[in-house]
């Protein structure tokens, strides 16, 4: 394990988890609520970064996968009152299917073309939800009768545990054999093939993993929020926020993506007194970071170092 994480990083993570898990002793329910949402967005951004940073696929529609997971879970809960774990599992499966669906064009198309397909996937999902409003609640969304918990502390710990588990798995994966192979195929697919790696297989795996995590996170988010709606989990604006979070934190670092996403949610809240203008300011800050620190806030810190 230490070879994957490195002692310093391991220490950092341990301290972070320790501090984060005792925060509820001091912080108000509101701050915990913000952090809870932020942690789920952290997972979204990490899952996106696995696809972009490692498999080299620019997915403009992370909310397609998230939305599939979230709405599948919400529908099963709302219509059939299935227990939460079952619906989350079903959401994960639906997202997995969606991920494989996206992977098919990804294996054929490059750059902007694949990006557009992912964008269109979101638009189609959004339209489908509005058209089948009788089941989905349409544009105003639907409430889910079950919730993870009504205690903000418990919700926070759920989100934190989920974030930490996802971070360990995704980061571990990115540093594992598969992560190396994915990176190699993202950088030069022909060479990766010539080294004996079935790039198709590995890319499919990356899409599956990314979809799975997105779907589960999406489902858990709606059970935290208590309602699923287009504006919460599907809207392109949400997808943009996820991508910006990852780029802001430092793409290709997994952990940076999570931290960027959390940062973005928190900053938006801190700037809430600006009222209407906070989105504008957040976008401007993000643009400035991209222009002046293209490696992201944490790109440098999280790069594996040379150890001579």
């Amino acid at each position, binding site marked *: 394990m230490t070879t994957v994480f490195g002692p310093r990083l391991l220490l950092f993570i341990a301290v972070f988890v320790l501090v984060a898990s005792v925060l509820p002793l001091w912080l*108000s*329910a*509101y*701050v915990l*609520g*913000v952090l809870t*949402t932020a942690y789920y967005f952290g997972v979204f951004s990490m899952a996106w970064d696995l696809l972009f940073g490692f498999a080299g696929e620019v997915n403009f529609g992370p909310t397609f996968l998230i939305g599939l997971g979230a709405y599948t879970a919400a529908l099963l809960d709302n219509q059939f009152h299935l227990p939460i774990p079952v619906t989350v599992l079903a959401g994960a499966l639906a997202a997995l299917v969606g991920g494989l669906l996206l992977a098919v064009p990804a294996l054929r198309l490059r750059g902007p073309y694949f990006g557009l397909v992912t964008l269109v996937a979101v638009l189609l999902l959004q*339209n489908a939800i*509005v*058209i089948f*409003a*009788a089941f989905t*609640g*349409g*544009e*105003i*969304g*639907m*409430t889910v*009768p079950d*919730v993870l918990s*009504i205690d*903000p502390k418990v919700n926070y710990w759920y989100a934190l545990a989920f974030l930490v588990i996802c971070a360990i798995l995704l980061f571990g994966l990115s540093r594992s054999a598969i992560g190396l192979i994915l990176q190699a195929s993202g950088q030069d697919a022909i060479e990766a093939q010539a080294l004996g790696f079935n790039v198709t297989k590995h890319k499919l795996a990356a899409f599956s993993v990314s979809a799975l995590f997105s779907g589960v996170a999406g489902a858990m988010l709606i059970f935290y*929020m*208590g*309602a699923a*709606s*287009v*504006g*919460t989990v599907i*809207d392109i*604006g*949400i997808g943009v926020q996820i991508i910006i979070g990852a780029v802001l934190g430092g793409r290709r670092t997994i952990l940076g993506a999570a931290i960027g996403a959390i940062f973005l949610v928190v900053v*938006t*809240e*801190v*700037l*809430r*007194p*600006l*009222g*209407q*203008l*906070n*989105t504008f*300011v957040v976008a401007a800050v993000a643009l400035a970071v991209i222009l002046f620190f293209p490696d992201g806030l944490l790109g440098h810190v999280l790069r594996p170092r040379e150890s001579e």
Partner: protein
Amino acid sequence: MTNSKHVSARLARGMLSAGAALALTLSLTPGGAAPAAEPIKIGVIGEESAVAGASITKAAQMAADDVNAHGGVNGRNVEVVIYDDHSSAADAVRAFQRAVSEDKVSAVVASYISEVALAIEPWSARLHMPFITPGAASTDISKQVHDDYARNKYTFHGWLTSAFIAQSICDFQHDTLVKDFHVKSTVVMSEDAAWTKPLDERFLDCLPKAGIKVLDHIRFNPDTTDFTPIFNKIEGEHPDIITTGISHVGVQPTVQWHDQRVPIGMAGQSSQATTSTFWKDTNGAAEGVITASAAAPGVALTPNTIAFTQAYEKRFGASPAYDGYTTYDEIHVIADAMKAAGSTDPDKIVDAMEKTHYTGTVGTIEFYGKNDLYTHAIKYGPGFVTGLVFQWQSGKQVTVWPRDKANGKIAFPASIKMPK
């Protein structure tokens, strides 16, 4: 106030609030000397970039000032804390959490968007926070209170549900269009959205009862930009009137209806048409458009209406949107409930609000009870809230229904051919 002043004022305010935020982030402690009696805080979540959403926060501010001018509540002042949710449900939930946990408000008034109201509802239940939406229309809001009263009783629906809006339009059509214009048939045209489902259901039920045959029922994609096909199709069916159910769109269909000289009038719910800027936004294409609304300038729905409208116009330079009236009333309703309860305990506030009988600017407000279908929604009907129906005539909103409140007569532009 002209629009140019309005724009520069907004720019100036933007800089001010940016500075304020900076100051706020710099000063770490919320501190400050507490006044003798801490004010009672009410959270108000609006959408400043939307005309309807901006009316909520403005009217709330006015209402709070009025309450304070009349001695406040239980010896304490009322303070509204304003948030902007950028029309996003997720954003609104965080604002709601902030209001409850951070700013310790005692009640929340939020949004005209059904998606937002429905997203807040579970949080109102979880955090035991009295919450009222002054402008959303979805029937689901009150239905959920009905279905799980114990949990959701903190939510109130402070505007007519879409079913009642449809009913008021049927009543209007029956009272005026059928009687004065011999309208016998209609086509229902509404955007394909969840809020129009119960609206259309009620239309299809009550229009025939009002004596109007429904020739067709057209639902269109809310992303539609070109309405020509829809108007052409309707024209081909030769109805006497188009009954609308639109909110997401409004300016576009109206302008295209006007530009193409569609010879059939439009009457129904057109949310964008209720705003005071609609005339300018459509460059006058709104001439002849009929829509249901909460109130209209210069119409004394109650003795309080005109005073409020004038004060609002004086203070903000524009007339309030429909949810401005309801927000103003509902802040008073909440304040009265707190007075009656003698505390800010949420359960006591809810109990007191259920007993509300308050005559505000849109009518007399009472809420349906636990056993009614629409629990905690405001009561519809004569003597309570009926809303009104007005028609755009030469840049003015001329109220044409209910008849006893009307300040003008229906008049269609020449291009519209009525059966009379």
